[in-house]
């Protein structure tokens, strides 16, 4: 292991300081570092055991810290990346929603965007015009019906008048006939009068023919007027009031459509702004993730100081071992180890401690500290186990 100069100095310093601390009673101040003190073999053996375990503990704490720092770094980078994706998606979402908002208030008619409210007003105007047309049409149809009612009456009058002409004509004819008879009685004196009477009869016949022609024509007119009247009645009798009242329904539908669209737009606008807020919040989260960098630096600093401590301890241990008689070994600090092992609830971490402290060390598992089950629990490493 690389030991920086500062660490070496610290180790030597610690060794000088530690030696007197190990003693049971205060030793006389060493003049040149070679002063001898008496220490019990038990205390020395205990210290050696502690030193061994402490060094190993420091090692494993360092590696755990490094492991943790790496884990935090990987996870943070992963999280940042995911959050960045999330922010991007939230932004895209808000753009899409804004597009919908822009489209929602209008419709495409013959390639032209028309605001919905303008369209609705236009359609309502159209229906109003239609209803107005129906009203005007109904009024005209009724005027026409009344007019034709009158025409029918007039034509009936006309038919009666033609009948009157016939009556007059019959009388005229009768008079002319009488005149002819009287003229022939008058002999030579009535000859001229007979001619006149003849002419009158002729006139009467012509008038009769004229009356016939008129009757026939008037008959045709009456027939036509009656047909027209019937058709017009059918038209006027077609009730358009339900179509007029349809305007009420159309108006309500249009109003409801506009209201619904306005509501949708409001909701979508909120959604778009929420998406934007989300993406900016996520950006803040990503910035917040930079704590990891600081944490990493702190852990590195802690690890450096732990390395110095570990090196110092190792050197001191070596120096003391060199002066200890061969019969005195390190005694395992069993109680301390038990306390230490009791702290680890993460099985994976506990396993690493067991390996380092017990299997690699001089410690024995005679007191049952080494729990072999722990080693076999690799699959669930990292999970928190409840004891």
């Amino acid at each position, binding site marked *: 292991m690389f030991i920086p100069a500062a660490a070496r100095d610290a180790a030597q310093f610690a060794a000088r300081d530690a030696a007197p601390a190990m003693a049971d009673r205060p030793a006389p101040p060493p003049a040149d570092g070679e002063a001898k003190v008496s220490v019990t073999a038990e205390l020395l053996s205990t210290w050696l055991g502690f030193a061994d375990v402490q060094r190993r503990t420091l090692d494993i704490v360092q590696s755990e810290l490094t492991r943790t720092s790496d884990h935090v770094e990987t996870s943070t980078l992963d999280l940042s990346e995911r959050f960045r994706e999330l922010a991007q998606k939230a932004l895209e979402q808000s753009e899409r929603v804004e597009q919908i908002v822009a489209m929602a208030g209008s419709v495409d008619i013959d390639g032209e965007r028309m605001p919905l409210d303008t369209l609705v007003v236009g359609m309502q105007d159209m229906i109003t015009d239609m*209803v*107005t047309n129906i*009203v005007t049409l109904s009024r005209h*149809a009724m005027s026409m019906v009344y007019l034709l009612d009158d025409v029918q009456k007039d034509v009936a009058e006309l038919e009666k008048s033609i009948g009157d002409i016939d009556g007059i004509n019959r009388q005229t004819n009768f008079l002319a006939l009488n005149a002819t008879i009287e003229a022939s009685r008058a002999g030579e004196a009535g000859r001229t009068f007979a001619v006149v009477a003849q002419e009158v009869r002729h006139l009467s016949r012509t008038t009769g023919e004229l009356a016939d022609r008129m009757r026939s024509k008037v008959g045709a007119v009456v027939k036509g007027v009656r047909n027209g009247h019937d058709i017009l009645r059918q038209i006027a*009798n077609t*009730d358009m*009031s339900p179509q*007029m*009242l349809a*305007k009420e329904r159309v108006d309500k539908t249009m109003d409801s459509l506009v209201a619904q669209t306005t509501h949708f737009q409001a909701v979508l606008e909120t959604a778009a702004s929420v998406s934007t807020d989300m993406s900016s919040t996520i950006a803040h989260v990503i910035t917040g993730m930079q704590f990891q960098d600081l944490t990493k630096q702190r852990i590195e600093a802690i690890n450096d100081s732990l390395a110095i401590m570990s090196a110092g301890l190792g050197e001191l241990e070596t120096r003391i071992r060199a002066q200890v008689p061969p019969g005195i070994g390190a005694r395992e600090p069993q109680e301390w180890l038990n306390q230490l092992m009791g702290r680890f609830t993460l099985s994976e971490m506990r396993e690493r401690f067991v390996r380092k402290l017990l299997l690699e060390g001089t410690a024995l598992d005679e007191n049952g500290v080494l729990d072999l089950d722990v080693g076999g629990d690799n699959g669930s490493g990292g999970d928190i186990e409840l004891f």
Partner: protein
Amino acid sequence: MYSETLNLKDDPMDYGIEVRDQEAVVRLRGRLTFNDHAKLRALIGEMGQNKPRRQVLDLSSLEFVDSAGIGMLLIAREEMDRADKQFVLRAAAGQVKRVLTVAQIAKIVQIED
């Protein structure tokens, strides 16, 4: 119920006239449809002859009017104009009121509640 509805449908319009000092009030009842056109024409003639200048058609008892009926009411207004009389439609309700509203008759004829 059904026959009642049928009766309603065949029920022709009829009317009563009340001539007061200031106005003549004609109360229409039943359903005003094309079939009543001769009757309405006679009514229009009567209204033209009534003394008061203000001629009011009370529609509160009128249940229904068809599009021909609307046309006839407009003709009545024209005739009243010609006879220099004021024509008022009063107290329309239900379908009659709705049709008058949709047809925007208020733009042409004075309407009172």
